């Protein structure tokens, strides 16, 4: 196992290098001159060639491609992603403002989802075709069908209409003021967690149903084991692999993909930053954020792979 972990950790290096190269190449093959795009035809399209050249120099675009890649990679290794063209601040500083919020939301929503989804998915599977199963299925289909932003707006409106209270409009980190943080974050966490739980509940139910029909489960029942032992010890762990994969990929997605929820709850997270950076043609930020997303997926996938072994002892890593 140790060897496997070491191998997987080493494998991260070429994976990230490949991701970095891909991000770098994509940013350069997209049509249009980035420097020209940044000026955006200001002053009625009359762009000073000196300024254009200066911008190319500032972005390092006057260098050979391999030098540009090396410089960027060296910066990435030192957490130096360059300077945002939009805000004029280092990209890493801009990221550090937004990352705690996105991480908190992603972690808390994942926890909410797992806490809701596993028990309810199990309950629906072991009580298949009863009113409990129907109720779980209806609620989880609701979570899939109703857009998160609508649930979010509904949440805010109900709070304001019935309690005359609205969530704070500005993020306060939990280590600064936990209560203010809770007041703001609980609503997006519930909103995102509901959709996330809906997906996970359905996955838990269907995989558990499949496992419960296996021969070894029938044998366990025949041996006279109690329901709790059959379901939790024998069935649940074996049904968890697809669920773990789903939770992992959803978590990585949540770090950078919550644009609409962030907009509704006025959260200044990574998702909105990505969209704003693209809109402002903030080339260093876009490059950094795509790389960050790729990094999140690589790390989450590693954790998912390692978790497999704990859940399913049949998996032997070589």
């Amino acid at each position, binding site marked *: 196992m140790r060897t496997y972990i070491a191998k997987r950790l080493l494998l991260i290096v070429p994976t990230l290098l490949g991701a970095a190269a891909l991000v770098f190449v994509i940013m350069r093959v997209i049509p249009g001159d980035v420097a020209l795009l940044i000026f*955006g035809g200001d002053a009625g399209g009359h762009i000073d060639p000196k300024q254009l050249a200066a911008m190319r120099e500032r972005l390092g675009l006057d260098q050979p491609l391999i030098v540009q890649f090396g410089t960027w990679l060296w910066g990435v290794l030192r957490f130096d992603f360059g300077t945002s063209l939009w*805000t004029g601040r280092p990209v890493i500083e801009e990221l550090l403002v937004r990352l705690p919020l996105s991480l908190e939301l992603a972690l808390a929503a994942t926890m909410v989802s797992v806490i809701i989804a596993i028990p309810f998915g199990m309950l629906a599977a072991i009580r298949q075709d009863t009113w409990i199963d129907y109720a779980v299925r209806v609620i989880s289909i609701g979570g899939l069908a109703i857009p998160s932003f609508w649930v979010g707006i509904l949440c805010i409106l109900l709070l304001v209409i019935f309690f005359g209270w609205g969530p704070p*409009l500005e993020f306060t980190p939990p280590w600064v003021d936990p209560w203010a943080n809770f007041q703001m974050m609980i609503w997006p966490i519930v909103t995102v967690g509901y959709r996330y739980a809906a997906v996970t509940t359905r996955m838990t139910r269907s995989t558990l149903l499949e496992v419960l029909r296996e021969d070894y489960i029938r044998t366990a029942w025949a041996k006279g084991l109690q329901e709790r032992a059959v379901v939790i010890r024998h069935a649940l762990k074996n049904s968890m692999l697809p669920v773990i994969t789903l939770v992992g990929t959803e978590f990585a997605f949540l770090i950078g993909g919550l644009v609409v929820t962030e907009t509704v709850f006025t959260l200044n997270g990574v998702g909105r930053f990505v969209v704003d950076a693209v809109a402002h043609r903030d080339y260093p930020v876009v490059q950094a954020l795509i790389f960050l997303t790729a990094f999140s997926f690589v790390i989450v996938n590693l954790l998912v792979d390692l978790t497999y072994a704990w859940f399913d002892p049949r998996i032997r890593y070589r």
Partner: protein
Amino acid sequence: MTTGIRRHRTFTAFVILAVGCLAVPLVAGAQSTETPRRGGILLAAIGADAPGLDPHQEQTFATLQPVAPLYSTLLQIDPYGYPNVIGDVASEWKISPDGLVYTFKIRPGIRFHDGSPLTSADVRASYDKILFPPEGVRSIRKHHYSAVASVEAPDPSTVLFKLKFPSASLLTNLASPWNVIFPKKYLDKDPNYFKNNVMGSGPFKFKSYTRGSTFEGERNPDYFVKDRPYLNGYKYFISTETSVRAAAVRSGRAYVEFRDLPQAEVDAIKKHLGDKVVVQQTPFVIHFDVAMNNTVKPFTDIRVRKALNLGIDRYTGGRVLYGLTGLRDVGAFTRPNTEWAMAPAELEKYPGFGRDAEKNRAEARRLLAEAGYPNGFKVVLKNRNIKLPYQDWAVYVIQEWRKIGVEAEHRPLETAAWYADGRDQGNFEVMVFPTGHFVDDPDALLAPFITGSSQNWARFSNPGIDDLYARQARTLDPVERRKLVIELQKIVLENAYHIPGLWWSRNVVHWAKMKNWVAPPSHFTNQKLQDVWLSED
């Protein structure tokens, strides 16, 4: 509220006007009989993030509202007497008998927030940047000052504007809230410095700005107006969602949304909070239109342009959209019922303004068929990602065009991308385009139709229009000027260069504890907040 502009016609009488000591405290004192309370942070919700922080280079409330309290201007529109002009850094001014030299005296003792003194050199440098922008620097409103030949600073407290010809609008346009005074030393180093930075001499100092989230200012203890401001600071919360901003006001997380909220939201807030809130309703010097890119097919064809104009029933639109958005009045390019407006009977002769919508549509279909589009065509309608009223207006236009066979795909863009595609690059076919100004001034309202203007998103050029624009700008006789203004609008309408939409009206709802603020018919003026105070936190 008076909707027209009170003109300063002093030059027509060839007399020297000295408007001295129009001190702001007098204005403030006239407003409130209650004793102002000091302290508190004014919390406001705003519907977009600023594409840039330099008001000379931007044209959106998203820039001006957050930064206006940080800056001073040469003159300003009276916060309590729209559209009268009063001084800001100028304490007095006079106009030469021939109307060709404007002399301004700068108040002594004004300091920028970095401690350096504000002198005539800073005023000159700021206006030079607006009037004669160096290469690579955008100046949105330079066409409003075509009369100005030069700006001079003969001594630290005097600024001279020398004109090529007498101008009817210059004094009003010098009160533009966009023309903030920057320190010369920063402009000398980089004329684009203020795109991302702030350094002013206004009642508040810059505190923090988190893009996409908040913008904060704090009290300037060295402000040149004694005992101002009353507030300790102000804070804008940015949200593009109308319902979120309305909920923020309703829950007291924000005390005001300065731009506008839909009537339905205002009614709900008023019903919920009763006397705790105040609603101010005014007209709005903004109309929401659709710009057609006249340089791309099929909009190079006048028949297609006319058809798209004919395809929109504006009268029904005004009735349907008012409750939802505040868009109501049908008019051309100057606000209805003002001295510059076209008479309704006259307007009805132009494409899209006839009262019989079915007849208009039949004519539109005929023109499209004649132009080679008997089954209509598909088009992308780009828009700003702000619901009120941009997207509501677009939805109405799309369903109207569908009736003449034109299928428009709605594509909302983030503010900066919308400006980049519309204003800067012309990367669009049709685009929702509002025209607004801080006063009803023809120089400003008609600038989108002159050749080469950065406000001419439709990118058409008509020497006749340019000539009329230049002539009206230098015509001092209001009757004669009105004729030219109307004639110019007729040419735009006849050629269907542009699609005029509906004029907006403004609903500002704020908590009653926010005192001493009056909503003018523009969300660009009265945003300095120097006289605003909170009766409680």
